[in-house]
């Protein structure tokens, strides 16, 4: 355990050193070294610029994500539960392979380049993993659990609420986690394509590109990575807390 940690630290140090050497050798202002990027990152953090951009980005993600949850979650559960609704999965399967970013042109035509269009892209990104995970979770409830409920006198409604949904919980939560991750990636891409109000992490790195500030671009990228990592970690932690009954969770 300890040895593995030492190894990991060593790998990171090696990577940073390699990066510094390459940056030194290339000697271009478009390839800043780790120390310069680190300094810029600290400066942006201290000045509050990074936080300002991050908060706006997060607000967009939360809005789109929640919208997706409110629509995709009940729809997925309903589709998994009702045999007639199951056939709707044909349409879902057709729409799902379309990358969320391919919706950007339509989003711009329908909603312009403001808040709504970003929320729409995020919504699309988060929608399908949430939908398909809740759908599969419900549909794959073992039939003997449903029959066990039935012989104990549970009505259809009680079986859905007290057996099927709790049993699908791990799958649903995983869908939420994957959905949020994709939403975050979509957001940054959506912000790159243009904005009405000039804030957001995607905007920050685009603007820095225009000014040729590669260190700011990289600092922005790091911020995006860190926030994505934290969101994923928080949701995974919640998942493990909430589905303690599942066992063999890592």
């Amino acid at each position, binding site marked *: 355990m300890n040895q593995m940690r030492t190894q990991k630290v060593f790998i990171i140090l090696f990577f940073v050193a390699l990066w510094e050497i390459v940056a030194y050798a290339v000697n271009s202002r478009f390839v800043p070294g780790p120390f310069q990027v680190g300094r810029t990152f600290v400066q942006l953090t201290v000045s509050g610029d990074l936080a300002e951009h991050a908060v706006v980005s997060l607000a967009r993600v939360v809005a789109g994500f929640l919208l997706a949850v409110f629509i995709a979650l009940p729809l997925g559960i309903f589709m998994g539960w009702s045999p007639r609704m199951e056939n709707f999965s044909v349409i879902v399967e057709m729409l799902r392979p379309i990358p969320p970013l391919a919706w950007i042109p339509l989003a711009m035509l329908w909603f312009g380049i403001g808040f709504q269009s970003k929320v729409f892209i995020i919504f699309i990104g988060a929608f399908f993993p949430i939908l398909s995970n809740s759908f599969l979770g419900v549909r794959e409830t073992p039939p*003997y659990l449903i029959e066990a409920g039935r*012989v104990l006198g549970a009505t259809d409604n009680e079986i859905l609420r007290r057996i099927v949904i709790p049993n699908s*919980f791990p799958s649903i939560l995983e869908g939420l986690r994957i959905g949020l991750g994709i939403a975050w990636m979509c957001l940054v891409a959506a912000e790159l394509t243009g904005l009405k109000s000039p804030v957001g992490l995607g905007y920050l790195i685009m603007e820095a590109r225009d000014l040729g500030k590669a260190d700011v671009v990289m600092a922005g990228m790091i911020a995006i990575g860190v926030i994505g990592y934290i969101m994923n970690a928080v949701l995974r932690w919640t998942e493990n807390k909430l589905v303690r009954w599942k066992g063999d969770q890592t």
Partner: protein
Amino acid sequence: MIRLENVSKSIGDLEILNNISFPVKKGEFLCLVGPSGCGKTTLLKSIAGLRNYAGSIFIEGTQSEGINRKIGYVFQEFSLFPFRTVKGNMDFGLEIQKIPRKERHNIVKSLIELFRLEGFENAYPHELSGGMQKKVAIARAIATNPEILLMDEPFVSLDAQTRNMLQKELLRIWQKTQKTIVFVTHNVDEAVFLADRVMVLTKRPASVKTEFPIKLDRERDRTSYKFVEVRKEILRELEVEYVD
């Protein structure tokens, strides 16, 4: 207690149950044995109201339709609710019947004692051994105090030792609670050990082939001459069903 009259079932062209009639007395331990895939599970699920069928099934004199509160059911699969604890599983049927919390608590407590599961009240199914999970499944089935317990090869996936231990436990609980039990198995040894009466079913479509009252006393010894004799007799009947 239970009476089946001309119960038949087919799915499309496939005949599964063929005109089955038999009674089960109150407090009786009846074992149904038959070749694998003969329709034993379908028969049991029909009695439980989980499958539809042609013919009639009477529970305490009244024709039974759909789910019947007088019936508890133990599945072949490990069918505990994985998201509920041992207590929570036992509580499920009581919650559905909207029994007051305090009363539910007392019932669950006495079940924990009856099944000797002290210390595991708050464990989740995945934390239990297979044998313990089966005990909880039986407890869950009798929590709402049904008079009849239907058991579908409940011990099939367990090792021989656990299986023998659970058979003894089941007999103890049966004697204590006086339930009427219909127990499906394809294991003749198990049937002879448990039953007051063993009924042999034919291969699909299942019908009643023969029945054997088991006149051994309740302290049964699997290695005793009489036990082995009865076993042999039933096996002979059953083997005919496996040929051709």
